[in-house]
């Protein structure tokens, strides 16, 4: 019987691995630099001036307040209207479900000025719906209502998508068990599904709010005045140049940190280690 020595385990080419590591690290660093540098530059250059301007510049302060207020309203309407839609998409097995989901994603994929034009076609005063709304005292174009509509249109699909995922993460058998324990469909939703999905729904609302705050394209087409922060920064840039636009832009970046921090806090809370016996 002949014994053969065991073949040495195959090892990778050390030099090739090192080169690959260097290339990957370089690409990642460049990517991070590309994302972080403009934002850091913006806050570094205009952050302090922006915070001072919040006190001294009434127009900026009003624009920020208007942005926050309208984004909050749009998010509220989105949560009320889109939560049932997200639930139906997560749980329902009806014909046209995929088509409905695709339609709801469409506002995310079209250029936002196009979204504004689409809204204008339906809600302008010379359209049947716009005229009807005008008749009951609800002006869309050039109004706060218009800003809320534009924000809702472009950001609600994000909420629907994230809320649907939140519902998907709750096993329908929890609801089933609740039903066999005497709950009606609504009771099971209220007592079991919503308490289990609330983190995901809140995260979805935060994402929607953040997207609404940053909206520009649809608002500028549908409303322009009164000016939200994004429109104000654009106006100051085109009228007075970069220097005047910087404080507004920096405040918008700082404003975006609020939802970012909220999302981090939510996710951190989710990841709290559970005690196991």
């Amino acid at each position: 019987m002949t014994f053969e020595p065991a073949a040495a385990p195959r090892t990778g080419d050390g030099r090739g691995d090192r080169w690959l590591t260097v290339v990957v690290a370089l690409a990642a660093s460049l990517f991070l630099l590309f994302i972080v540098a403009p934002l850091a530059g913006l806050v570094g250059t205009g952050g302090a001036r922006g915070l001072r301007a919040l006190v001294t510049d009434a127009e900026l302060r009003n624009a920020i307040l208007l942005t926050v207020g309208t984004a909050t309203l749009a998010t509220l309407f989105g949560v009320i209207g889109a939560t049932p839609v997200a639930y139906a998409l997560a749980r329902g097995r009806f014909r046209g479900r995929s088509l409905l989901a695709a339609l709801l994603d469409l506002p995310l994929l079209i250029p936002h000025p196009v979204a504004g034009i689409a809204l204008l076609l339906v809600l302008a005063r010379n359209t049947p719906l716009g005229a009807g709304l005008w008749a009951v005292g609800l002006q869309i174009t050039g109004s706060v209502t218009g800003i809320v509509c534009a924000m809702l249109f472009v950001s609600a699909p994000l909420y629907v998508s994230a809320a649907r995922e939140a519902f998907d993460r709750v096993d329908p058998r929890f609801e089933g068990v609740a039903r066999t324990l005497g709950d009606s469909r609504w009771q099971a939703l209220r007592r079991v599904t919503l308490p289990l999905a609330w983190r995901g729904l809140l995260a979805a609302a935060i994402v929607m709010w953040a997207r609404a705050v940053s909206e520009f394209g649809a608002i500028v087409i549908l409303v322009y005045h009164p000016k939200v922060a994004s429109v104000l920064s654009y106006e100051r840039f085109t009228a007075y140049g970069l220097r005047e636009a910087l404080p507004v832009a920096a405040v918008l970046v700082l404003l975006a940190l609020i939802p970012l921090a909220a999302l981090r806090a939510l996710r951190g809370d989710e990841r709290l280690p559970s005690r196991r016996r």
Partner: protein
Amino acid sequence: MIGLDSVSASVGDFDLNDISFAIPQGSYGIVIGPTGAGKTTLVEAIAGLVPITKGTLQLGGSDMTHAAPERRRLSLVYQHAYLFPHLTVRENVGYGSVSPKVTVEMMERFGLGEVAGRDVRILSGGERQLVALARALARRPEVLLLDEPFAALDPRRRISVRRELRTVYFERRFTVLQVTHDFHEAGLLGDVGVVLDRGRLLQVGRPEDLFRRPASPVVADFLGAENVFAGRAQPIRDESPDWSPSVTAEDVEHAVAFTTGAVTLYAIGHVIPGSAHAVIRADEVSLSRVAGASSVRNQFRGRVMDIAPAGAITRVTVDVSGLPLVAAVTTRSAQELQLAPGVEVFAAFKATAVHLC
């Protein structure tokens, strides 16, 4: 009482087809079948969580085919408990309870008093299942549906939980339908056994009958019959010594010659001549080292092929003219007979031990 009449239901691509059986009021029904048989779909259809597309469902004498789950007066316990993770143990047990007193009673019965205020996410698998059972029973259901409720429990805990459930069952006499793939459990608990496979009903009957008289080779194989042989059955002539002319009833069973390979077995049955299967449970086959002079009709000489001891029982496979016949004998007998591969033995079993299907 649970009564299904030609019930069909669909979940995704899976169909449950034409299921009919009845579990009398206060009886314990067992659903057995391999993975993918549709056991859980059946239970969920009875619970109203999967819509019934055809047929009718009776619960407690009322038509509940399309009733909402909350109107069916039943409780359901899944294998994975599905405790509500945002509620404590006490809140879970009390979720559908008929009264706070019953909640406390159930918690005490299942030994949950010490963990009442605990977060259910940190309970062990056994504790979770106890909470699920207590929660289901606190509703005082008329029908209890159990989907493999003991599968996640360790053997010691399984025995104690099963015993506690049986105690409550005998006290209150609700109707139970339990899904299991454990044949031992089926035999131990059930009054009525239901065998499913690939969404179809294969057989309904007393668990003992399912084991002794399977309706098809598939059922026999699934229920762990060691000796299932394909062959041809031929009723033996209606005359002495195989036929008593004094018996005239038409449905009296015939003596049957069943031929499989080079072996012909003697059986008793209603078989139509032609292809059939013979099922012989291993514990019906006895072994000896000498040919016996007894009334046993089937006696064959063979050689031991394999010996598989498992505790007090040893399974011995004997080659009978090419037919692998398995006998379950006590390990002590196997030792006393000095069985070993290649040893010549005589295998014997009664004609009545051969079930033809």
